[in-house]
């Protein structure tokens, strides 16, 4: 906890405790812990002298922010237009069924989180799936099925 707040302070110091840094700070904290711990929001609120409800409303407004812990492995299925017409819905169904998760959900053991994203800018090789930051291009349901097997084996 103490360590966490120190990390949050470091992020705040890097950007400066001013309102226009809010989003930048929240992005970094969210990235560091994979979600926004409640105490971190409290700290940001105090140091930026911003009302806590404004910070919560920003946290709720943007989909990237999570107020709940997320999995160690993130499976992100791109549902941008290019990916959609190239079959993203089928990929999503596949992952959903094989992982037993709906988009936005995390497995109980915090191993995996499934998310959808709107275009990661690799549309030329659509459809794409991003797994822990690595982009897999030209996916098919079959390729997806084997990838999920791999992920499951790794996280087991």
């Amino acid at each position, binding site marked *: 906890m103490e360590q966490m707040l120190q990390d949050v302070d470091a992020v705040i110091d890097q950007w400066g405790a001013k*309102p*226009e*840094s*809010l*989003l*930048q700070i*929240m*992005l970094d904290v969210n990235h560091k812990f994979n979600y926004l711990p409640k105490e971190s929001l409290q700290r940001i609120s105090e140091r*930026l002298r*911003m009302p806590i409800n*404004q910070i919560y*409303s*920003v946290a709720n*407004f*943007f*989909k*990237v*922010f999570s107020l709940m812990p997320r999995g160690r492995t993130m499976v992100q299925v791109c*549902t*941008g*237009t*290019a*990916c*959609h*017409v*190239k*079959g993203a819905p*089928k990929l999503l*169904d*596949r992952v959903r*069924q*094989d992982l037993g998760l709906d988009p936005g959900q995390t497995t109980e053991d915090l191993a995996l989180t499934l998310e959808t*994203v*709107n*275009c*990661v*800018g*690799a*549309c*030329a*090789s*659509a459809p*794409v799936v991003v797994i822990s930051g690595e*982009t*897999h*291009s030209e996916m*098919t*349901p*079959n390729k997806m*099925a084997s990838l999920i097997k791999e992920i499951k084996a790794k996280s087991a």
Partner: protein
Amino acid sequence: MKRLTSIQDLDALRQQILEKRKHIRKRIRVCNGTGCHSQGSHKLVDAFEKVLSERNVAREYMVVPTGCNGFCAAGPIVVIEPEEVFYQRVKPERVAEIVERSVLGDEVIEDLLYVDPTTGNRIVHEYEIPFFAKQQRLVFRDTGSNYVRDIEDYISRGGYSALAKVLSSMTPEQVIEEVKISGLRGRGGGGFPTGVKWESCRRAHGDIKYVMCNADEGDPGAYMDRSLLEGNPHQVLEGMIIGGYAIGAKEGYVYVRFEYPMAVENALWAIEQAKEYGLLGDGILGTDFSLDIHVNRGAGAFICGESTALMASLEGKIGEPRGKHIHTVEKGLWNRPSNLNNVETWANVPLIINNGGAWFASIGTERSKGTKIFSLVGKINNTGLVEVAMGTPLRTIIEDIGGGIPGGRKFKAVQTGGPSGGCVPERLIDLPVDFEKLKEAGSMMGSGGMIVMDEVTCMVDVARYFLNFLVEESCGKCIPCRVGVKRMHELVVDMCEGRATPEHLTKLEELCHAIQETALCGLGKSAPNPVLSTLRYFREEYEAHVYDKKCPAKICKPLIQYMIDTDKCTGCGACRRRCPENAIIGVIKECHVIDEEVCVRCGVCIETCKFKAIYIE
């Protein structure tokens, strides 16, 4: 590097760089754009460097990691200069051989060449590939050949000469006049005349003014802003500095979505370099003009691309738009005059200054000047980024540059303008593409996404897709958008799932018009566009869903069924083994069948069957 303190310094530096590079015999360009990167191109750069240094020739042969080459379908791409030998789909295993034969030697490696799908011929040089032939690359000219992390590469190409020209010989008013003469219109979607915007911001009252770059690129399916910022950040920056000088700004912001980490990194790095060289910061090029630029990440909400929402989110508020009776050029960020332009708009500015507004205005159509970069994706052979003069017929883009539709399928429509745009159908394929013509066709330029659709794309599903996107992305501030778009989505979902009645169609159309007229911001006002345009051109497809409960394109799951063709099935059992639901029944060497009750229509079996025995009914 010592700071440049005069225009002469910049010219001298350019000469020096060119001199320094004289001993370089060949340059090996390795595309490190997002597309190629996701296919492993970063490993290529390392491999080339390793082989060259092992052979002790790293001084004469230079590896150049570049931004997107444009022809992403062929990635990872390696081009060897000066001959411009073009190698496609290159794997790290081939690097040693390429160095041996094509870098140190002058051989061409046949099997790495691009094959023209129409003639079957192998093409050696980049400039001979049809994909490039009909393009007019001006803004995007250097993105695929520029050494991304080297300001000197940009300077050696004439970079920052436009800034030097402006600072040494033009007043801010003259700069604005030149941009007005050019007829440049914003590339972020609306197409507002750039010079006019700059002029109102210059005239607005306030000591502190901002120049801002919109790199939010919320359009799903478009990635040219990203590629420009990643591949040639100095060009965008140079445009912004010139703009800052013209309007009298002291500070600037680049707003990039966080999903584009490489764009963020490259923009930051370019700003650092430009400062080091005295091209940004205090007393630029020894003049008394100073400008500071920051990079801020957006949190990936589509609405934050809208100017007032973007500025709100920069101020640490939620990204909600406000009514635009007061323009942001007068009261924008922190209520100060703020001039926001799109990435591609900024990248056009150095060109206009270098070549003159009249030159720029000679390209394009009556009211749409210059070129436009499109991201050509979806069901098309040559996916990638394409830059053509405004007014280029859609046919040229789809057939000549794009190489047509894969799998021998038929072209059905192209979606432009993202969630605010619409679909242009096959029968309008000779449409010249510019701001006006797209609008007349019920679509929009938007930021330049072109998502190509073939016969197996369902237009009702496309409408449903965009409505779902907009429901998720609506900020919820105004009722027509929050409630109306949601209702539209429900209606279209009913159609896709076979529950619709004829009334659904009438209601849907009524809602379209009501929302168009009453929504607060551009998101809501344009939300009905994807529906209206598909209704206009593909009404029969909606009717098939509503009256016959059929999906002609065979996409909408509740309306289709997977079947096995008894004549074609060999009973190999491959599909049975792969089906994740165990929905396929049969014994080996006998025809298999699909249990409709269990099948979830995932498509795994169709992809698996080597005999094309599985079809959708």
